[in-house]
């Protein structure tokens, strides 16, 4: 009986599978032998991503619909989830248009609700379960935009800052319960979310790069990961610019 428990294949839940970063991270977990539960708002694409991973990496993949902005779908999601996974990756995110968010509260609210408010209903649930079970992991995709507010994207940034603080508190609470919490802070990434933007090539990562870094950091039990690595130093500097100067900068 004891052996069976040790040999059991672990399962990782992915929240927001259709984002490019999430798909790449799902692949990394599959490569290291995890079975997957994939969830997303666009169920058809989520299923296709699941089929692809199943065929390529011979792991078990389950797919469940989840629309983060629709609380009713949360209920169905919990019902359909037959098992509590060994851990989860939270990769739901909405950037919106900064200018639009400044003008229109409903747009600003959509950003905050998608990135922070409504995910709490899901994350709290699993945090409690993991705490009870005394094992588990939570990987949350934040953003360097959450490290300091800049005029270009501070509403998105504010939602990510909230997520960072939440994950940090969660880490503090769950460390004694053997639950790992990893905050991933990507910089520019070439994804669907950013395809309309002109990104600086040297500072821009491919989703696969973020995913590989994430798995490495997860296995090394890290708490916070900047990817690409250069952002760790860049953000260190940016965070330490006095506000008096920072407020005048055009970053």
């Amino acid at each position, binding site marked *: 009986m004891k052996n069976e428990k040790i040999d059991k294949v672990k399962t990782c839940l992915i929240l927001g599978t259709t984002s490019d970063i999430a798909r790449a991270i799902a692949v990394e977990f599959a490569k290291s032998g995890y079975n997957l539960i994939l969830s997303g708002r666009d169920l058809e*694409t989520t299923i*296709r*991503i699941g*089929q*692809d991973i199943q*065929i*390529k990496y011979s792991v078990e993949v389950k797919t469940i619909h989840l629309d983060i902005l629709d609380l009713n779908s949360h209920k169905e999601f919990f019902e359909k989830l037959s098992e509590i996974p060994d851990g989860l990756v939270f990769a739901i995110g909405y950037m919106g248009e900064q200018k639009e968010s400044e003008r229109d509260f409903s747009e600003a609210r959509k950003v905050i609700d998608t990135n922070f408010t409504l995910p709490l209903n899901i994350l709290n649930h699993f945090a409690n379960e993991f705490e009870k079970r005394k094992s588990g992991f939570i990987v949350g995709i934040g953003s360097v935009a959450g490290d300091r507010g800049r005029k270009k994207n501070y509403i998105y940034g504010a939602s990510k800052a909230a997520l960072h603080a939440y994950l940090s508190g969660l880490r503090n609470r769950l460390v004694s319960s053997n639950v790992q919490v990893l905050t991933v802070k990507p910089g520019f990434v070439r994804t*669907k979310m950013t395809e309309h933007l002109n990104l600086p090539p040297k500072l821009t990562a491919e989703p696969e790069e973020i995913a590989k870094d994430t798995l490495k950091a997860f296995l090394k039990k890290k708490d916070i990961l900047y990817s690409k690595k250069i952002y760790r130093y860049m953000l260190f500097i940016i965070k330490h610019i006095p506000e008096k100067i920072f407020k005048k900068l055009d970053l």
Partner: protein
Amino acid sequence: MKINGWGHYPTINSEVRSSADFSKIQEIISKNTELIPNGLFRSYGDSALADITFSSLKLNKFLKFDLEKGILHTEAGVSFQEINEITIPKGWFLPVTPGTKFVTVGGAIASDVHGKNHHKSGTFGKFVMWIKILTADANIVTCSRNENEDLFRTTIGGMGLTGIILEAEFHLQKIGTSAIEQKTLKARNLDELLVFFEEYKEYTYSVSWLDTAVKGAKSGRGLLFLGEHSLDESLGKNYGHQKQLINLPVFLPNFALNAVVLKTFNFGMYTKEFKSEKDFRTDFDTFFYPLDAINNWNRMYGKRGFAQYQFVIPMENAALNLKKVLKKIADYGLASFLTVLKVFGEENDFYLSFPQKGYTLAMDFAISRKSLEMFIELDKIIADAGGRLYLTKDSRMSQEFFKLGYPNLEKFLEIKHKWDPLNKFQSVQSKRLGI
């Protein structure tokens, strides 16, 4: 961005669009009046080039792999390399593969690719069960032998001119091992080589390399490579990657492949095989994809680029016509670096598909005023012989010559017009050839 085919000739500027999301692709099709899909750019000339192109590379998902029946369903941008890595260890292999594994499923369909087993198995298109394609009106249509057959028969071999291939389902062939039993035969001249082809036609895979640098009685000497999937199950199904991937990091200068170098290389290829016959065991990559071991080998020809001249001619008078071709090349004082001769089996019913019963010869020549002039002379020999050129390799043939070789063009155009009345799907090549 600048895009070009494998031959680096021609190169054009193109706006490359891409998405994995069908609704986004529909939007791209609706918004543009003229474009062509592309993938890994292994077609040599201008068939995947246009001012606006759609890259299928984000369509990269495997959707079904039936391990019992050996049926694979993928999106169009999945490459043969990825397929090999997944299906070979499970005992299934592509039914037909070209000489490079860096082609996409969509590209393989659009070119209706052939391989070393064409005389036995036909083209890749024969194994395709159905295709999901985004047509000019931005609708997603499924076509097969039973449904929209006209679209099916124009899409296979249709050079991307009927729409954006999104997905396809196709049969694989069962294999017991991932090893190949190879036999190499040395032929002293063209006549002997053709006799060998006839004598060994029962082999599943056959292809020959011939020396175009030698004149006279020895002209057309070469090596015939034969292969069978090994039946020795103890060998297992490990699909070992090519051990060393050599990269040609820069373009060689234009003069690097001069006549002396070519002659020496061809002489070396021929004489390194001492025996007249040799049997040995080899692996998939070495047998099917020898050139894939050298990354960017196409840079060998320098920045001027090169053309692969590949034709097929009927069996009747083939020896005579092949000799005319070799003589013409010798008269021009040119030699092809790599020359490949193979027997084709029966023609299929896809309107623009290249293979027909006969011999196919593929040769690489650097682009120069002389070689371009020679191609026109060769075209005349091929036209007289009742042959034609492979659209996937072509960058320069004339409309007249093309139309002579492809009598089903009228029918193709009629069906294309039905599905694409405004002629949305056009490439530099299709414009040049009046497709």
